[in-house]
């Protein structure tokens, strides 16, 4: 699916909730069900440190698509991480680089991605796009 299609899907899923508490319940659920990251990547080398919660991120290139795995010590962060992975994982480097990720704002979680909110998520997106850029460069070199 295209990134924009997944974003629309998420927005419509969230539109079912009137109450913010239900929204957060859903995020917590998603956080809990985020596939585990390979323990070898849960080290300082892969950490994206924010003030509030830690995020670990790993990326690998497979068949021209980027495969992300991630984790966080805070569940809400983990839930949003899982949304980001749903949108950006298994996409091409080019699509990742150009993704605008407006859905976070649209589902009412904007503050978690505000660049002034030191929670590691902004740095995480930056890092995801950086991985994509590196992979793209690698792919171009091979051609």
């Amino acid at each position: 699916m295209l990134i924009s299609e997944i974003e629309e899907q998420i927005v419509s899923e969230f539109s079912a909730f009137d109450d913010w508490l239900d929204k957060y319940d859903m995020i917590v659920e998603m956080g809990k069900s985020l596939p585990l990251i390979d323990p070898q990547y849960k080290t300082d080398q892969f950490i994206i440190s924010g003030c509030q919660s830690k995020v670990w991120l790993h990326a690998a290139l497979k068949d021209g698509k980027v495969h992300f795995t991630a984790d966080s010590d805070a569940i809400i962060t983990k839930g949003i991480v899982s949304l980001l992975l749903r949108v950006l994982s298994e996409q091409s480097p080019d699509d990742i680089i150009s993704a605008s990720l407006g859905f976070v704002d649209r589902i009412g979680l904007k503050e978690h991605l505000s660049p002034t909110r030191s929670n590691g998520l902004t740095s995480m997106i930056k890092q995801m796009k950086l991985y994509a850029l590196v992979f793209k460069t690698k792919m171009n070199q091979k051609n």
Partner: protein
Amino acid sequence: MSNFPVDKIRSDFPILAQQVYKRPLIYFDNAASTQKPRQVIDAIRHYYEYDNCNIHRGVHYLSVKATEAYEEVRRDVREFVNAKSTREIIFTKGATESLNLVACSFGRRYVQPGDEVITTIMEHHSNFVPWQQMCFERGAKFRVAGINAAGELDVDGLKAQVNEKTRLIALTHVSNVLGTINPIREIIAFAHAHNVPVLIDGAQGVSHLPVDVQELDCDFYCFSGHKMYAPMGIGVLYGKEALLEELPPYQMGGEMIKDVFVDHTTFNELPFKFEAGTPNVEGVMGLGAAIRYLKNIGMENIAAYEADLLKYATVKMSEIEGIRMIGTAKHKASLVSFLLGKIHPYDAGTIIDKLGIAVRTGHHCAMPLIELLQIPGTVRASFAFYNTEAEIDQLVAAILRVKKMFE
């Protein structure tokens, strides 16, 4: 508690009528920054509408008026902390600047390679890193005193670190994470018996407790306006006159200068010697209004009311299953840091916020302490004298909601 006029006081703080997420704001982030009473906000407005001017050295009406008002507040601050003289009251931009000023000037004057400076593991970064970096730079040893399980300073351990190479002890009056009120008088007396001066970081002290620097006999005492109901951008450094006289100036320019020649410069007397650049006259006016406001209520009354709030919160919150109080010192200021089972502080804080309650989460700029405790941070509710037991009840309800959500 019953005769503390909290309703009247609350009506002095416009922001407390504010709604967040369609709920009345409950503001429990007072250790980070307090709200401002109308009296302070009005003082700022009045200053800009009637008296605004650059001060000192001006001969015209506004300048003389603003200068006098500025120096009047210096007298108010002197009285507020009971310094001996207004020459001992330096206006800075905040506690952090006060601390950096002393670290820089004291370091240059007194700290040589091999010397030692002692601080504690519960310090705010602003009273930790300036000393750490100064020690690195000057080849001195940076020593850090520890705490016990309740979060109380290991006073014996600190005393044991004092030796003939100790140049200064820098420690906080009140911990901004644990709430611990340190036995500073005892430490100061001990240090002085060994000829060691003591700096007190009063950022969390001066808004909660009556402070008498002469009775404490501390050598330096630092605090911020914005944590004591005054505006941002203003702070105070108290220092004993004899010591301040010895220290070299810090920043250059403005009223701190006496005469400038191409090949040398002479500096002004205390307190001006340490006030470089156009001062924040507005901030000083606001600080003056805040001090008058606090004096009006009475620091003793504030301390008593806040002690009651702390007791209430401690009792109510301790009843919550799985709660872990971080900091259970016998002498505590009115804040509670806690963790809920395995729930991450960020998760708890996010939900508590959505319920209209402002608490702070994270390491509270005290990473060495958080590292020592091996926790991911804490959730901290810090109380001011405008808070109420009813608000604490709401916090308890919010915590129960958080537990339900994440457990």
